[in-house]
């Protein structure tokens, strides 16, 4: 059920928040053993909150827009007094001392935080297999990965454990798992949503966003979580730009870069995505073929800048400030042993790459050049947005792959992000919406817009849902 449907039930009195919550908790109890979406479920506290919502409603107390709606969080979003492990052994026993701004806003709107979801360790991964606490399986086909790094959040929504979940997206970590699990995922414009209380991976790329079963629910969550926050100086005002949907794509110009339909893309997937784009043309939209050569370099640029920022951000996890210190004869040895024993292989790989590209001998050749190209790519995209309203293409070059297939081949795993990293590098909004399937596995259509055009992107996505 969507948020709007649940709200109607609550208002009519045909279903209480407690009954709704119990239904979801029962579903988690029965089915999550085979999926592994949740690391922890706050059943007790959630029931108390649901009862409070029902009691408040019964006495005519004004209700928030999300009163009684259960929401799951990726395990890198802090809830005061709760564990936040970011999928890592090093934070296994870390208890958050404050709540993320998004959590405060959701709770103020009456939402019920139902639990924390599995993720790739420190969001380093595209399959949720790098989690220190086990893999999450794709509810569509449990022999396959759910994507990542917000794989737990995507699986929880796809399995019907919650109507909505929050994830974080550094290079596609909301959109790619959404595509692989057949749900909707949205990465807002950089700065639309506060990152205060998000365990950082790459601070210039990270953004919190929602996953849901409909674009309408994505907009419902964005209305609550978006907007300026004094605790995050990069935030800006966009919350006013989530109006009701227009329901029309006439006069809409859709850009389709040829670089999004390259050799990396599965041919069956390509034809499904092209068919979806043609549907917009059939309803009056204009298709504009684009040539954006710098898109070909986006993945390389991303895998320089992201590890560089990650290496810096992850320095604090040393057993001194965070984590349990290992034994050692000196502080240096303690730090080395803590990090060696408690960080996973993919995280170590990114730290090593990050430190390499930032080292004095190579910073010009790698990092500074990547930063310059990031600027050039953003300018190229902005120029394209002078001609078109949105850019469309596939979210992922492939459908969900079998568990373990790419785990030992990091470069092949990185290629799964080839079409999503662009939006993070340019800081623009991007939506992944289900647009069909290949051999029973879901495919995502990616819709990107100019920075700040979050509402436009959701509007176009909503149109697709309404005609599908």
């Amino acid at each position, binding site marked *: 059920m969507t948020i709007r449907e649940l709200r109607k039930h609550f208002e009519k009195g045909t279903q209480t928040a407690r009954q709704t919550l119990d239904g979801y908790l029962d579903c988690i109890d029965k089915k999550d053993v085979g999926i592994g979406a949740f690391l922890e479920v706050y059943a007790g506290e959630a029931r108390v909150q649901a009862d409070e919502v029902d009691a408040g409603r019964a006495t005519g107390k004004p209700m928030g827009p999300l009163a009684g709606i259960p929401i799951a969080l990726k395990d890198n979003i802090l809830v005061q007094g709760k564990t936040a492990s970011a999928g890592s052994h090093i934070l296994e026993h870390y208890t958050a001392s404050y709540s993320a701004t998004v959590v405060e806003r959701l709770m103020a709107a009456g939402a019920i935080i139902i639990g924390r979801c599995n993720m790739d360790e420190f969001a380093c991964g595209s399959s949720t297999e790098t989690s220190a606490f086990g893999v999450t399986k794709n509810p569509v086909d449990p022999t396959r990965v759910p994507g990542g790094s917000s794989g737990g959040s995507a699986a929880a929504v796809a399995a019907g454990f919650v109507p909505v979940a929050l994830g974080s997206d550094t290079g596609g970590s909301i959109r790619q798992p959404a595509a692989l699990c057949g749900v909707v995922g949205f990465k807002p414009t950089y700065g639309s949503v506060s990152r205060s209380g998000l365990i950082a991976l790459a601070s210039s790329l990270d953004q919190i966003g929602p996953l849901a079963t409909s674009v309408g629910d994505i907009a419902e969550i964005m209305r609550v979580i978006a907007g300026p926050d004094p605790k995050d100086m990069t935030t800006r005002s966009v919350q006013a730009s989530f109006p009701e949907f227009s329901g029309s794509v006439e006069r809409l110009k859709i850009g389709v870069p040829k670089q999004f339909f390259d050799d990396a893309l599965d041919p069956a997937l390509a034809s499904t995505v092209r068919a979806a784009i043609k549907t917009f043309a059939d309803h009056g939209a204009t298709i504009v073929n684009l040539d954006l050569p*710098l898109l070909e370099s986006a993945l390389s640029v991303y895998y320089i800048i992201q590890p560089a920022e990650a290496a810096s951000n992850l320095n604090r996890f040393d057993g001194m400030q965070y984590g349990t210190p290992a034994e050692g004869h000196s502080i*240096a040895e303690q730090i080395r042993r803590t990090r060696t024993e408690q960080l996973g*292989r993919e995280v*170590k790989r990114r730290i090593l*790459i990050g*430190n390499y590209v930032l080292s004095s*001998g190579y910073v010009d*050749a790698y990092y500074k050049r990547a930063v310059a190209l990031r600027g050039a790519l953003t300018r190229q995209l902005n120029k394209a947005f002078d001609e078109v309203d949105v850019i469309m293409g596939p979210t992922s070059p492939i459908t969900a792959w079998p568990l373990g297939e790419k785990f030992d081949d990091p*470069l092949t795993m990185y290629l799964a992000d080839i079409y999503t990293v662009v939006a993070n590098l340019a800081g623009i909004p991007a939506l992944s919406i289900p647009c069909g399937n290949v051999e029973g596995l879901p495919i995502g259509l990616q819709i990107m817009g100019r920075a700040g055009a979050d509402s436009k992107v959701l509007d176009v996505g909503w149109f697709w849902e309404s005609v599908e």
Partner: protein
Amino acid sequence: MTDKEFDVLLELSGLTVDEGEREVMMSDVESILGYVSQLPEEKGERKKGKGASSMNHEPRTPFELRPDELTAADAKEVEAIRRAFPLITEDKLLEVQDVFGSKDL
């Protein structure tokens, strides 16, 4: 990447790797760096035809770990620091202890 470079990288990263894992990790890092080094040329770049690869790039400084050299402050510096930072806060809640190896300040 040489073994020495990899060792320096590990040191910089505050990590160690098992012998069995070392080869795989080095190979992974090299293949990823090989991939990301295929960046296009920027306009007006002098070294045309050369990408970002470490294979054709001369580091400006030797890729070595610089040991931190700790030198004890001399008497003049100690006195300057003592004057600049009061030993006790105005609210008398925080008192400096054990600075310069002496509790008797």
